[in-house]
Structures are given as C-alpha cells and as structure tokens.
C-alpha cells in the first residue's frame, strides 16, 4: 500500500465513522424520518374527559441508517475502492506480482 492508497483508506474510514457517529447522535433510528411525533401535554380538560395523551406531528428530518447513512457509507466505500486501484503504482503492482 502506497501513501496515496493509505490516505484513501484513512479518509474513507473517517468519513464512514463520521456518518455512523452522526447517525447515532441523531437517535440511531433504523429508517430516516421526515417528521417526529411529540407527546402533547395533557390539559386539565382532557384529563377530566378521561382521555389519554395525544401526539403531535412536527416536521423534522431525522437521519436514519436506511437509506441515508448506508447509502453514503456505500458510496464512500465504493469510491475509495476505485481510488485504491487507480492509485496502485507500478512499484506496488510489481511488489504484488
């Protein structure tokens, strides 16, 4: 492995790790979401009416493992494999042979 190839591998690993960390920080959801359900605070009237807490929709993007994190990681892995072979020098080729 030459220096360029090493850079490619390191950058790819850092990008994939960053994507996974971002996914975990975003809540570690399996599927990406376009919104979230937030539990509404019960009013005294709702309690008097014997009702259960309700949920309220809020538009908010939540990064999920599928498809965004997985697709991004896949693209990074694919590109790094291509670059890895492009950066294969004569020396490393001969060494491998």
């Amino acid at each position: 492995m030459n220096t360029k190839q090493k850079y490619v591998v390191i950058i790819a690993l850092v990008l994939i790790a960053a994507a996974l960390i971002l996914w975990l920080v975003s809540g570690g959801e399996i599927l990406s979401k376009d919104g979230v359900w937030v539990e509404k605070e019960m009013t005294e009237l709702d309690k008097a009416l014997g009702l259960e807490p309700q949920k309220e929709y809020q538009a908010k993007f939540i990064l999920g493992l599928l498809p965004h994190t997985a697709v991004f990681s896949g693209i990074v892995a694919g590109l790094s494999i291509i670059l890895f072979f492009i950066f294969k020098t004569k020396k490393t080729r001969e060494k491998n042979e």
Partner: protein
Amino acid sequence: MNKVIKSIVLLLLAVSVTFAQGFKVKASGEQTFNFEDKRNQVKFFSTTPLEDITGISNAVKGKVTLNVSDIKTMKGSIIIPVSSIKTAIDLRDEHLRSENWLDAENYPEISFVIKSVGDVKVSADNKLEAKITGDFTVHGVTKETVADVSLTYLDASEQTKQYAPGDLLGVQAKFNITLSDFEVENMVVGQKVSESIEITATLRGSNAK
C-alpha cells in the same frame, strides 16, 4: 283489563329504567355530539421487524347521538380520510395510500359505524365503560368489530367553554384489526407489517348546534 295493561306498562317502564345505564348529569334526553375537530385523533399502531410504525390522523369527522340516561341508544359513526394518515415518513405515507395498500383513490375513507353497545360499566356519574360493536370499514371491506370504549360526559361549564360551547363527550376507544380480514397486504415499503393493527381513538365531541 285496563288495570292489567297499565300494570304491565308500568312494570316494563320500571324494568327499562332499572336496566338503562347512562350518565347522571344535568343534561337529559337525546343529545348529538359532533366530533369534527382537528384536535381529535385516531392512531394506528403496528410493528415491523425494522421498527414500530405509528400512523396518525387528525382529520376526524363524525357524529354520535345518544340518550343521556341510556347509553345503549348510542348511534353514529366516526370517519377519517385515508389521505390524512401520517407515519412520519413521506414515502411510506405515499405507499400507504397506494393501490397496493389502502388504495385511497378507490377507498378514500376509513369508518366505524356504531351498531350496538354492551357490557356497560358505570365508573362515575359522568363516566362509563362499554364495549361498542360496530361496522369497521377499511379498503372497501366491512367487518364487525368490538371496541373497548370509555365515555365521559361533561356538562357545559367555564372549563368546557375553553374547548367548545355546549356539553362535551370524551371518547377513548381501542380495538385491534387483522389486516388480512380487510384484504390489505402486510408489506409497506419493503417492511413486513404485523398482521394485527391496534387502533386508538381519542375524541372530544360537542353538542353545541
């Protein structure tokens, strides 16, 4: 002979009053409650191997009529448009409305039409629990379904005015349906949805005209 007839009528009245289970509130007689309000909610809950799915509609329509002193007289229906269900993933909402799932174009509404009320339990003067049998229709298929329902009657007051004029009826209902009974495939965006869907309705109705 007249005395006998009168006695029978009185006896029947006494029996019906004794067995009539209803609210002991200021209001009396037949009341109609309108549930068309964006604060009302119907929730659908299912599990898939990937995650739990919650679908919610806030576009509830419907009216319920009942005799305050006899809950068994309850009639009416609750309707929600299929297009109003949100699951927090836009693509999944589209798939839910598609021909392969609920087919919103051909079957735009989900409805519950009350047929009868049974197993009434009085938990307070203004609170009842009951099993309500009704015709539940989804995807153009109608099946008789029994819902566990708790009903709370609030006479009009300063507190109820904050929500709506008139008396209020709070309805908390829950029942389960099986997807295959309604000819709905149990795959949504590649996820196998549980055969059993739990449906919860949280409703407030006003009798203001």
